[in-house]
């Protein structure tokens, strides 16, 4: 009778373990998929930039330096290796693009060009997608990390060597810093 009871309890424990293990595997796959989504969007951005530069070149001859910087940043980003490296280079690219768009404000004919408008929409959408893909990745990675750190699921996670996933962070200290806004009334 007691033997049967012990056996039943062990069986319950086994089922619980299997459930936990499967949950963790599912989450790990979702995290990996989330990471790939970010890559897909980054790749898309790299593909769009040569198009953009070619389209605006005719209008912005005097800004050759800025255009070169964008291309350089783009090429550096495509060859980046590792998370931290990729993050810095992608940020540099974002900055270069920002300067290009700021300069484009000085060229009314450029701004009115339908092709440029569309490219700008595509690029800003891609920027958004990168942001949202990161946001989703962080959400799902947090869920994965919580699932393996809470007791008693952490026993299962430890047994099968699950590792907490890294979160996507703002690597640049300047980006993290809160902008200082001076609200005092100056005479």
């Amino acid at each position, binding site marked *: 009778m007691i033997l049967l009871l012990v056996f039943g309890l062990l069986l319950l424990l086994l089922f619980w373990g299997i459930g936990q293990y499967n949950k963790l595997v599912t989450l790990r796959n*979702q995290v990996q998929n*989330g990471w790939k*989504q970010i890559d897909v*969007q980054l790749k898309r951005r790299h593909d769009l930039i040569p198009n953009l530069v070619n389209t605006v070149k005719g209008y912005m001859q005097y800004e050759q330096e800025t255009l070169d910087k964008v291309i350089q940043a783009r090429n550096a980003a495509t060859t980046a290796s590792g998370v931290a490296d990729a993050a810095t280079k992608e940020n540099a690219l974002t900055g270069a693009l920002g300067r290009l768009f700021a300069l484009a404000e000085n060229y009314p004919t450029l701004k009115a060009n*339908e092709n440029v408008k*569309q490219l700008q*929409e*595509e690029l*800003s*959408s891609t920027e*958004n*997608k990168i942001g*949202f*893909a990161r*946001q*989703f990745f962080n*959400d*799902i990675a947090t869920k994965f990390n919580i699932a393996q750190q809470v007791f008693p699921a952490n026993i299962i996670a430890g047994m099968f060597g699950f590792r907490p996933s890294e979160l996507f962070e703002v690597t640049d200290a300047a980006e993290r810093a809160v902008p200082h806004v001076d609200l005092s009334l100056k005479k």
Partner: protein
Amino acid sequence: MTLTARNIYEQQSHNKTLTVLVLVGFVLFVGFLGFGLDMYLSGSGLDSDEGAGLPIPVATILAMSVAGVGAARSAFNGDAAVLASSTAVPVPEDDPRYRQLMNVVDEMSIAAGLPRPKVYLVPDQDPNAFATGRDPAHASIAVTEGLVERLSRDELQAVVAHEMSHIRNYDIRLMTVVASLIGTVLLITEFGTRMLRFGGATAGKKSSKKGGGGLGILMLVWVVALILAPVISQLLAMAVSRQREFLADASGAELTRNPLALAAALQKITDADEPTQAIKKGSAHLCIADPLGRKANEREGFLADLMGTHPPVEKRIMLLKAMAYQTG
């Protein structure tokens, strides 16, 4: 105000259960109407010689099978019916005018981690939007032309995020089923009341002579049910949609992390006051804001809770602004 604090999984399973309940309730209700017809036919035919009390409840079985088919259709094909009734057409993929809309939908499906829904365009100048379908893999978002024209990119994104939350929470399944059942209930009651009037003229004298007590009460319940059915189904539609709007506002803002854009969009949608022509009454509860611009939706309290499909826009905007202050 009581915002029921449910997490997304509880909300999903709650919606799924409620959908099944609505469908079962519908089949039973129609069966009851058929049962009444059986009683009516056998009751009025008792003293005549043909068919002394129908042994098989033909009308009950017939009604229930028709209702079963109707319920299945509404569950699997309800989105098509809703889209067709609002004259929505698929957005042309390559049209540069709708490129931004398509991009925004892409962005929000990435943010929600869901497959990209089909995007439809309703040819109407009043800004409005709705989502329909049975699950995230079979979902559609429809927006009016007016919405695309009047809203900024951020506002459009906020509206799409709101609709994406309806999809993620399985609100769309429940609301679509309710929308397509409302239509069926209206048809049935129309048919039923006609039968009653027609039958009452010929069989009235015979049954009054007999005056069976139990049967009379049942008939009374039946008639009341028949008359109240459209009202009850409307009330149901309103009850299911009000709380869900608040929730979709909140989780939509969570996707964009920009509650103020949704507040601005809601303001624009209400300010454009002409009623949406293309969206019919039966699917009003699916929309982000009441397409009919009914007064009941602007008030609060018991009566408004009963009559309005949407919470007051001012209140929604107020809550969204509060979210923005909280998050900085």
